[in-house]
């Protein structure tokens, strides 16, 4: 691990010595950040849908209507507690 950090430090030093213009650095990193953020958002939305499927849709299949009426507030309560 320390060796990895040392390699990264050398890479960062090398990068900072390149003398790239401010705009080049900002725009280059903006592309990477845009890409990574969008993938993060997609993963986050899938995570929400997964939680919704596990916690809401699946139990709805097995519960009676009255059981589901009682389950819904309980689910949100437990969901908030877990969060």
């Amino acid at each position, binding site marked *: 691990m320390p060796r990895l950090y040392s390699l990264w430090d050398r890479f960062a030093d090398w990068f900072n010595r390149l003398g790239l213009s401010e705009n080049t650095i900002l725009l280059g990193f*903006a592309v990477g*950040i845009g890409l990574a953020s969008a993938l993060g958002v997609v993963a986050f939305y899938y995570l929400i849908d997964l939680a919704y499927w596990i916690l809401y849709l699946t139990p709805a299949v097995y519960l009676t209507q009255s059981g589901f009426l009682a389950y819904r507030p309980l689910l949100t309560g437990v969901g*908030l507690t877990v969060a």
Partner: protein
Amino acid sequence: MRAFAPGQDGLNIPDVQRAVARESGRIPMRPALVRTAASAVTVGSGGAAGSEGPVAVLGSTIASALGRAFRFDPARTKVLVAAGAAAGISAAFNAPLAGAFFALEEILGSLAVGAFPPVVVASVVAAVVSHSFLGNNPAFPIPEEYGYALQREVLVFYPFLGIVSGLVAALFVKTFFGTEEFCRTLRLHPAVLALLGGALVGALVLLSGGLLVGHGHFAVHLDLFGGMSWTSLALLAVGSILATSITLGAGGSGGVFTPSLFVGAATGGAFGVALAGLLPDLNLRPEAYALVGMGAVVGAATSAPITGILLVFEMTNDYEIVLPLMLTTVIANLVARRIEPDSLYSGWLRRRGERLEQGADRDVLAGLKVRDAFDPAPHVVGSTASLDLLLAHLGRGAYTDLPVVDDERRLIGIITLADLGRLAGNRDTPAATVAADVATPAESVTPADSLLEAIRRMGVRGTPSIPVVDRSTGRLLGLVTRAGVLGLYERTVATGEHRTFT
């Protein structure tokens, strides 16, 4: 959240604002990731919270980590953090323009030209990438048909919608922080509070027929609003305010931006339906009012009117709606700030002892402390100093204000050069006059106060300096002057420690 990131109750958009203004754009990775997961559970289990907070934080955290890894200076890291927030909002709402302006308006606090290109590029790239995974759909499915039939609607009816939206936005802010305060006074165990709060929200959602929350990450279709009565829509707006306030006040995780959109849509819809009922011959379309209300309430509740306008514009892709949207949103923001000075974001920060100022100069001054600028050995006089001794101070010392202290160096007040001049010119002054008789009460600051606060307090009495005291003992520690403040400001700007993009 508490287990994996103890002590982090926030890490939402206000935290990103604070990180940019106070901590050189440094955002810790672990709490942000934990909060993202907690938000997914909150939203997925039916909590009434938005997804925009976690996604903006996620984007900002990625940018902050990159900035730290490459050892960029704070100014560059801050711009990248803003670009990350823009990318998150852009991808989540399929709204690159709104994402970019949200970052400039809310995160950086200025429409800085230098920051514009990277913020826009990140926003556009994020929108393109999210299209390919999530499709080219707006965050809120909008009605197939809407529109305003008459040009005069813009000037006659929409201003009233602006006033109503402003009132609702202020109600949202007050309810949100009132609920947070109420939850704190209950002194329940966090798990019990979350369980009770969640159950209450679940019951509210049931009562609304599920309309208060969406399905997974999908929001409610606004077409539904056109066929409802105005009372039902008004109840939905109030219900959404309550459900969001309880969800987040009881310990849930998520944002307030999406709920603000929902509250705005319900408010605008209620206004439109009521108006259409009163004036049936005008063939008014409540859906158009719902869309405009959406932009107005989100703009007013978060104090980000440009973002509100652009978000709805991008959702509808309709230039026609821009006219009523701009007017209504601006009026709503003015009305809301008149009633409630805080927005949902600034209120959250203020309640945690933070007051972020907008503007580069103010940022610099807000980031500097009195302890770095004050003179610890100013010229002072004792409270019992005689008139002759006081007049002997005329022309001596570097300052025009003389702090007056008692035997234990506690601040009594201040005597200005003008006071001394008046004493010298007045032959009727009793010979027994001492410094304490002449001193006037003075504003003071502590070493931990910001220079912005010091400048503000100097402005209260129009003095060129202000005493620095130890708040617990009242003892004078020194004097900070406008010249001292400006000197430190210039040195800081010259060394680039607080470089900002303009």
